[in-house]
């Protein structure tokens, strides 16, 4: 264990991680988190209790679809889904075929209504990538040897500079187990 007083570091890391979560708009999707570090070892560990992402939803549940010459017109009824839907449409059909006419209206050329209405959006993936982004922003840059434990309830990442000591992995597993059963803070 380190002999120096590292209170500043722990408080600072907790503070900046909260700010990063706020910047990325995922404060509510992280129910709890724990940051542990031993600079003398050295290892850095971050464990996150994941919140539930919104469940997958079909396009027909959040938008109205109408046939249009050469394609389908979409009128979004739940605006919260607009960015995710636009992204998905761009990925699938390309920017040339998807046009955003107004804030709520989109036009997809060359795609039938049936195909679009069965299209599903899964916000879980997007949430995970945002949480990983937050972790990389806070994780020390030089700690590139990493070990991850991920399941539906929690995500734990431990990193070090050189060889990963099996004892640290045991610590990570214990923290992960504790975090998985933790209720929201």
């Amino acid at each position, binding site marked *: 264990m*380190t*002999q*120096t*007083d*590292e*209170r*500043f*570091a722990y408080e*600072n*890391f907790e503070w*900046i991680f909260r*700010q*990063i979560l706020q*910047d990325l708009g995922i404060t509510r999707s992280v129910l709890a988190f724990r940051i542990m*570090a031993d*600079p*003398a070892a*050295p290892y850095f560990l971050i464990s996150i209790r994941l919140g539930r992402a919104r469940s997958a939803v079909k396009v027909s549940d959040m938008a109205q679809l109408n046939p249009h010459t050469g394609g389908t017109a979409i009128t979004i009824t739940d605006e919260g889904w607009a960015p995710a839907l636009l992204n998905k449409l761009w990925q699938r059909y390309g920017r040339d075929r998807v046009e955003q006419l107004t804030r709520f209206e989109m036009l997809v050329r060359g795609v039938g209504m049936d195909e679009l209405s069965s299209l599903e959006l899964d916000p879980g993936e997007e949430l995970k990538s945002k949480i990983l982004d937050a972790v990389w*922003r806070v994780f*020390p*840059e*030089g*700690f590139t040897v990493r070990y991850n434990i991920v399941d539906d309830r929690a995500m734990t990442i431990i990193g070090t*500079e*050189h060889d990963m000591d099996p004892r640290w992995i045991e610590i990570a597993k214990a923290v992960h187990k504790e975090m998985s059963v933790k209720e929201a803070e």
Partner: protein
Amino acid sequence: MYEVLMYDGGVYRVNELYELVEDVGGFVIQKTQIQVQILVTMAIPEEERPAIEAKTRELGGKIVNVPLAGTEIAVVAPTLGRHHMPHPTCDIAEQLRRLGAITVVMGLARGKGRRTSQISADEKAIIEEYDAAVFVLGNFKDCILEHKVRLFEDIETPVVAVCGPQIGSLPHCEAIVCGVGRKVERMRREEEIARLEDVSVAIEKVIKDKRRVLEEDPLFVHPAEVKDRIAELEPVQRSLRPAPIVLHLDGLRVKIPYREWKDQIAAVEVYGHRLGDIAQISDSRLGGSTLIKIKTRSEVEDHDRRKRSG
């Protein structure tokens, strides 16, 4: 002894100020015009300050103290990753710029990590070209005390270390400012602004000490006087870089390539001497620049004596 001041006012009749600066034996270091407003950084003999102040009042402008004017300072972070950039590294650089310094933000190629953190000889040589350096370090006390302190152990330029945890003293640096650490947003809270001011106070002290050492054996000419002569060179006038000539405490950085222009620079005449005789002219580690280190009065006198006798 020259004092560096900044005039902040309008362009109307500003030529009168330039004439007065010239009449009292001073120099205009930099002019930054924004439409009808102008900032003029100038070096004047200390005793002439009242005259300049009176003219400034007459012109409706104001005099701003810029204690770091005429210096070039490096702000060094272990890397240029988002862990160190833009906050707080850029905030510190901005704070120093507000006090008149020209600042350069620099990230080390292999500065990340704890035991793996390194600085190369090239990087050290680059830092030594500056008047002072600020090293912006992180959060872990153990990491700073055991490893990061080695980053600046052989650097001859005065170093101010900035870090998060409270540390009483640190070897190899002139001053240490604690309570900064890692940031993910601008330093704009009251206590953060106070830390930025602590950094500028530490740097001011370092610069003051360096000036005092220089005064013991004064330079043959003030760098601002050489700047005036060099500014007449054609490649400098053609240069599109924002500050083609940067003043140092003991010389200048001229942002034109050394290899092409060293002879023309050495041939510039200053008080009856070739610049090549009263200064050391060398290539800068930063591409496309030339460094000029002005010799002290005693060095030049010694050189003249030897020339006469031999």
